[in-house]
């Protein structure tokens, strides 16, 4: 099918398609970070987990021929990273932020070291579902090629919101994140809860990484991540620790990230690199706009070292 000229309509369409494509890793990493932070701990190492997940997912998909086994492998690798972070932070006097930075560098370094042989080979991609069948316009069809992980991420956000509200696990995580003392008084072990929450958060970040190497951009290289793991931390704060908000915020970031390429596609080349910075400018702008010198941050888990 030949491309049809749809003029400036191409821009919003490209942004929509780009938002869905670019936001998926943000959704997973931010949901993972949301879960971890709700338990009262920050894992800044998710950037490293993400890169390692991208590498291990790509490698396993290549070796087995199945992208889903790749995703699973990335989740397991991410979980191990998360558990390691959680285990170190259990010790007295260990700062979770410092450990997170160390884990970030460790994860990236290890991924580059182990991933060298996988830069050349081609691994199978994750499938996408075409929601544009009703349209004859190829651009619409292309924009509505929604990958399965995006859909899974959306469902996961809903499930996590429900979990925080209506399940024992969810309430336990919130109690631990809010007050270590209250958690102990109820008979919970905050260290174990945080360990598991960090592990689960790491697994989700690993899946986000697998998306990068197995769908978009769809290959493994050392420059695969452009800081999604770190941005997700800011995103969680902006989303006020609410999983549903995390989903929308990720979509917004994805849309901002797609702004540059979309404008480029209709021939705007002026200030083109500036548009690539849009997600970062957006992060700064939103954090400044939503902060207040008078109000305490709403919704912040009280045991978090950010809010202490």
């Amino acid at each position, binding site marked *: 099918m030949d491309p049809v000229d749809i003029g400036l309509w191409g821009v919003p369409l490209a942004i929509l398609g780009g938002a869905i494509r670019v936001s998926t890793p943000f959704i997973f990493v931010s949901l993972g970070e949301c879960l971890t932070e709700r338990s009262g701990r920050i894992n800044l190492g998710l950037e490293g987990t993400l890169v390692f997940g991208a590498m291990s997912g790509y490698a396993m998909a290549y070796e087995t021929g199945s992208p889903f086994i790749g995703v699973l492998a990335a989740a397991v690798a991410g979980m191990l990273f998360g558990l390691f972070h959680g285990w170190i932070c259990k010790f007295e006097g260990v700062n979770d932020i410092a450990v997170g930075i160390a884990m970030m560098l460790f994860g990236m370094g290890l991924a580059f070291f182990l991933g060298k042989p996988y830069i050349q080979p081609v691994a199978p991609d994750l499938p996408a579902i075409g929601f544009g069948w009703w349209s004859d316009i190829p651009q619409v069809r292309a924009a509505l090629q929604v990958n399965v992980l995006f859909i899974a991420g959306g469902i996961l956000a809903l499930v996590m919101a429900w979990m925080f*509200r*209506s*399940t*024992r*696990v969810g*309430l*336990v995580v*919130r*109690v631990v994140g*809010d*007050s270590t*003392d*209250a*958690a102990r*008084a*109820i*008979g919970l072990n905050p260290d174990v809860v945080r360990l598991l929450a960090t592990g689960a958060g790491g697994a989700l970040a690993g899946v986000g990484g697998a998306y990068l190497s197995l769908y978009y951009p769809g290959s493994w290289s050392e420059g695969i991540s452009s800081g999604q793991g770190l941005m997700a931390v800011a995103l969680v704060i902006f989303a006020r620790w609410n999983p549903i908000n995390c989903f929308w915020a990720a979509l917004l970031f994805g849309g901002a990230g797609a702004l540059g390429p979309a404008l480029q596609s209709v021939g705007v080349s002026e200030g083109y690199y500036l548009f690539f910075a849009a997600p970062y400018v957006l992060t700064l702008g939103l954090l400044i706009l939503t902060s*207040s*010198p*008078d*109000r*305490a941050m*709403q*919704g912040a*888990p*009280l045991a978090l070292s950010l809010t202490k």
Partner: protein
Amino acid sequence: MTGRKPRGAITVEAVHMTMKFGDFTALDDVSIKIRAGSFHALLGENGAGKSTLVKCIMGFYHATSGEMLVEGFDAQMTDPKAAQELGLGMVYQHFTLVPSLTGAENLVISRADVPAVIDWRAERARLDAFMQTMPFSVPLDQPVSRMAAGEKQKLEIVKQLYLGNRFLILDEPTSVLTPAEADEVLGYVRAMTRAGEITVLMITHKFREVTAFADEVSILRRGQYVGGGKVGEISIEEMSRAMMGAAPEVSERNRAETVKTPVLTLKGVKAVDSSGLKTIEIDAVTLHSGEILGIAGISGNGQMELMEILTGQRRLTGGEIRLNGQPFGMTRAEARAHKLRYLPEEPLRNACAPRMSVAENLAFRMFDEGPGGRSAFWKDGRAIARNATALIEAFKVKTASPAARIASLSGGNVQRAVLGRELSGEVDALIVSNPCFGLDFSAVSAIRDRLIEARNTGTAILLISEDLDEIMELSDRILVMSEGRVSFETPIETANVTELGQHMAGHG
């Protein structure tokens, strides 16, 4: 909730309890019996061993010797869970509720058998049915962080009953409540003991609560059981003599005639409260020299914000504050020039650097001041040490050494240390908030003496306090704050507690 737990009140007995920490004997052969359905008060000064005793009962400490009987049977309190399984529960002075969870969520999560998936509709129906049997109502849909102190206290008690506990230990339950709230809560608790539903052991300092609500009383002093019996058969004098060792010295506080000139004026002051939802508006308040202006109010009605405005911790959104006729921007330089000092509440958090030494903390007003009031560049270690020694002695601060971290001191000693620092040198104006919160009898009396003394020498004192008795005892003039506004003003001569209480509760 669980089948094993008894339905009605239970008898708990501690027999020959002794608890030693190294060489120190915190509890020395204490035996008390709390009969089923009784309201038992445990009196004693700070450090008398009350907390040690209840911690042994609840299984937090393992008593060095002695035993516990529950319903006449030997009970091994190896850990708090064992106590809970026998139906023993404790309401702490510091709330153990989870702030961001709602009342309902707090109740459900505290249960031992929380289902994996919570069916909120069914839970709510059950909770509502349970609340029908409770004497007081608690907002279940609000996050705890938005509740008033009284509501939290009630929720804590409700939680224990919801857990099926039939023996409750209340640790100074009224310290954060207004007199009316305290009477309400204790009245209900007593009604439940009378009905034979629960047994209560209440730790307290306040004789009034003992005589008005308790059936029996036990008094501890220095780890020993020094007296007790049925309330009504034992007089207040006997109780206080047992508690203090001798009759308490009622200090003679003479109020000198003072010259009253305006020092601090607030006009149309506006600010946003900590939740960002409500505003604080103070139309006109003037503090004069040589007077104590008391600000009464239930906690959470804007007093904390007022204190934060005056210390510069909270931004003004409107109005102006003048100090000695000049605009006041709450800076350290201005406060120093006008000799304005502060004693905020929770001084360890708001007025100290917790990890720095006592000497350094005591030097916060003078370390950067050289001879002749000029600013100093070099630190003068000897002057800091002299200052520390003098203040520690003058204000009877109990510390291992001036070099000890201030966070290692007890609450009363931190309070005295900060008060000493703030009252050193010439002080023209002093703003204090809950200066005696959580302190024992003798510390309270010493701090109040200091305040009156400062007033008599012409210092203007703004006293923000949630303790109405303290306001009545110290103030020359009383303002009531309610919902972020000053709702009532009266000189001490015409003040009466009932009227103040009504204004505090918001219906004047």
